[in-house]
């Protein structure tokens, strides 16, 4: 599955400062809210935090993929944030997280949700890509890099 069709320039926050996990999630949700109706943002944040408590979505290699199913959103939203300095996310490898992919999907798109998680997990095993995304200064750079990766990757 290609990731780039789900990546929107307006939903990319490059060069974010470090912060707590909750602060970062709030920032990314606020960015999404500027462009899409999210309904009850507080509930989404609560669900995301609950998911993190269950087990961290900091999957290692400087990547975190917080995700939840959201009632009422019209389509799957992928909000990307890069934190060049790295931020604490209680990742499985205990390393700071530099790129966050926040995935919100409507209840009728769960299969797509799972595929996107798989896609993100796959491309994020590419160290060079993660470095490029973490170091991207603009949303355009993030979008361009993901599109380039999509073209060369199996699937």
């Amino acid at each position, binding site marked *: 599955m290609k990731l780039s069709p789900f990546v929107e320039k307006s939903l990319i926050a490059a060069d974010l400062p470090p912060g707590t996990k909750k602060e970062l999630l709030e920032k990314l949700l606020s960015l999404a809210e500027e462009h899409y109706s999210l309904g009850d943002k507080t509930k989404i944040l609560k669900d995301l935090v609950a998911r993190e408590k269950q087990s961290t979505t900091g999957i290692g290699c400087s990547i975190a993929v917080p995700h939840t199913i959201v009632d009422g959103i019209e389509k799957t939203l992928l909000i990307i944030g890069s934190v060049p300095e790295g931020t604490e996310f209680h990742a499985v490898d205990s390393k700071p997280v530099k790129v966050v992919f926040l995935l919100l999907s409507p209840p009728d798109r769960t299969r797509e949700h799972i*595929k996107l998680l*798989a896609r993100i997990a796959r491309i994020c095993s590419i160290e060079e890509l993660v470095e490029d995304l973490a170091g991207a200064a603009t949303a355009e750079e993030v979008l361009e890099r993901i599109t380039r990766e999509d073209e060369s990757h199996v699937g």
Partner: protein
Amino acid sequence: MELLVIIIKQTQYLDDILTGFVDIGIGGATVVDSRGMGQILTANVPIFAGLKDLMPGGAIGNYMIVSVIESEKVETALQLVNEVCGNIEEEGAGIAFTLPVNKVFGLHKE
């Protein structure tokens, strides 16, 4: 439809292959803990004991991944295996093959 069979020695590749399956639209697979001939011979037949290094995959177990997949996904799946495993052609690394499937019951399409 085809039956895809992958046997890999590198256990660390298992997660990547299964994640890749989800990504390319293969919705299910069965994974079996398996043992290669080399491993059994070196463990059970005294004359072969001590030859673990000479037997392809003789020292370790492996995983067999089986999945009935759509024919058009075979090439992508094999490409995926090669991408994950690096070079499956290397002796002892593993094996991947497909077989034609005549009839399937119980497989649900996406």
